[in-house]
């Protein structure tokens, strides 16, 4: 049985179709990444799956229960960290946890022990008696993560869990997410518009744009859609260079500036072979650059646009290295 099964899900707001008939399945115990730009329909999908919005048509089953017919059964089995804060700001971290636990049917020592363990897990135990309104964005997000785990959900929904957080806090939250999956074998449905986040965390990724899923697979499978890795070599005597030939080289071109452009399936494995090959020719390598397709390239390839990056990081991971011989 799948953790989440969605068939032809449509959600309209008046005339506007936010989600235009999407279908996907999420396996138990996997992190499923829902990657797409802002406004693609990610949050709407999460709200439908968590019974907060009514779908217009289609069918969605979460933890074995229909979200429309048995919302209460679904609610019992899921946890969610919303994109926007949903904490009671006037209350302390502990009180927020306590109220959540009580609402979900936990009481007494068991509840207290769990609150302590989870607040320690997200490193907020020492701040337990501080009102949430004094917390930073990262602390609030961590508290929300702890709270969502309190009732041990089968499936956890994380809607843009690191949006607006600094890189250090993001890395921190990634660690928690990985730990949750490993320690509890939890199914996690993660939406994000950060490619690195999807790549780091998700076992499988669905790329969503304008309310439609345009590709689905593991990060590597998706990258294969774009093509091979590309290696650029700058050689000492470019005028003498001809195209290199070998069984692992899928394509070769001499560029105008004299650089050699090579297509290979896996740059990391191809580079040492290339060095040997060039060495045999008796030519010196001055510079090596390579480029692996990123999820951004995949998105660009599929839509002709880039996912807007808000983190300020360069989406292209270009590794430069100089080889001295």
């Amino acid at each position: 049985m799948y953790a989440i099964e969605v068939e032809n899900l449509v959600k309209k707001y008046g005339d506007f179709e936010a989600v235009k008939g999407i279908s996907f399945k999420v396996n138990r115990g996997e992190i499923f990444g829902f990657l797409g730009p802002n406004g693609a329909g990610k949050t709407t999908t999460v709200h439908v799956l968590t019974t907060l919005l009514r779908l217009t048509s289609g069918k969605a089953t979460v933890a074995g229960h229909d979200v429309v017919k048995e919302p209460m059964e679904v609610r019992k089995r899921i946890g969610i960290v919303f994109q926007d804060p949903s904490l009671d700001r006037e209350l302390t971290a502990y009180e927020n946890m306590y109220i959540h636990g009580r609402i979900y049917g936990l009481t007494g020592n068991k509840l207290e022990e769990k609150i302590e363990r989870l607040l320690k897990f997200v490193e907020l135990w020492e701040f337990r008696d501080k009102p949430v309104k004094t917390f930073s964005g990262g602390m609030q997000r961590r508290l929300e993560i702890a709270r969502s785990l309190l009732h041990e959900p089968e499936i956890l929904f994380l809607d843009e869990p690191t949006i607006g957080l600094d890189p250090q806090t993001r890395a921190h939250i990634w660690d928690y997410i990985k730990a949750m999956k490993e320690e509890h074998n939890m199914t996690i449905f993660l939406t994000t518009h950060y490619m690195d986040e999807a790549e780091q965390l998700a076992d499988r990724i669905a790329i969503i744009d304008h309310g439609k899923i345009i590709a689905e697979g593991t990060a590597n499978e998706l990258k294969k859609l774009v093509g091979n890795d590309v290696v650029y070599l700058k050689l000492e005597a470019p005028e003498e260079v001809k195209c290199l030939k070998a069984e692992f080289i899928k394509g070769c071109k001499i560029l105008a500036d004299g650089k050699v452009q090579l297509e290979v399936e896996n740059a990391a494995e191809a580079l040492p072979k290339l060095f040997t090959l060039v060495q045999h020719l008796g030519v010196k390598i001055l510079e090596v650059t390579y480029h692996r397709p990123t999820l951004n390239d995949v998105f660009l390839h599929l839509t002709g646009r880039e996912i807007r990056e808000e983190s300020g990081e360069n989406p292209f991971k270009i590794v430069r290295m100089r080889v001295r011989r």
Partner: protein
Amino acid sequence: MRVFITMIYRQTKRFFRARSRVMGMIINPLIWLVFFGLGWSKVFDNPMARTIFGGVDYLTFLAPGIFAMTIFNQSFVSGVSVIWDKQFGFLKEVLVAPASRKETILGRLTGDSLLTTIQGFIILLLTFLLAENLKISGIIPALLIGFLLAIAFSGFGTSLALKMESMEGFQMIMMVLMLPLTFLSGAIYPIEAMPSWMKALAYINPLTYAVDGARYYLVGANVTKFSITIDWAVLSLIAVVLVSLAMVEFEKATID
């Protein structure tokens, strides 16, 4: 029952966390009682005026009114405070929980109403210092009337807040509803003295019956407008209707 109690716990915690708010809630009715009530009580300190106010001095006449007014204001504000939960997101946490929504909202309304009634009680104790002829035996039944009033208007405020999109709308409604309802309740001057069109409005104002009921217990049967049975019946009916309305609205609530 579990969720019901939890919501009462939450409302209570929130209430006492905001100490400045607690003070503000008590100061406002005190201003009415002292600066308005004490001032006018000197003006009305003659036998003719006493007849208008049912044979008692003005402060005694006004005190149950201020009590009801305090509860009315506070319960309405606490009901509408659901809009803050909407704004700050806590509403989502409640809506996604596997708990009966009817029980959740009923717990919230009950918690708020208990707190509001306690505030009314504090005001009542203070009025006893100023007004001479109030009955101590009337405190407990008056508080019951107050609780009924509180839960009715908390329910009304909640329904409004769930329907409302913005805080601006909230300010508008406060302005348009709260003062007129106060003036049209017989809290400050007797309904008998009103022109007939105002009287008609006073009769359909739920607050009127709370003021009248509180006056019955705190002052005496001779100053009331309706029989106490009518006060209880009307207030109970309105409370049931408004709380049910809030429950229905909350049951339907989704997030957009």
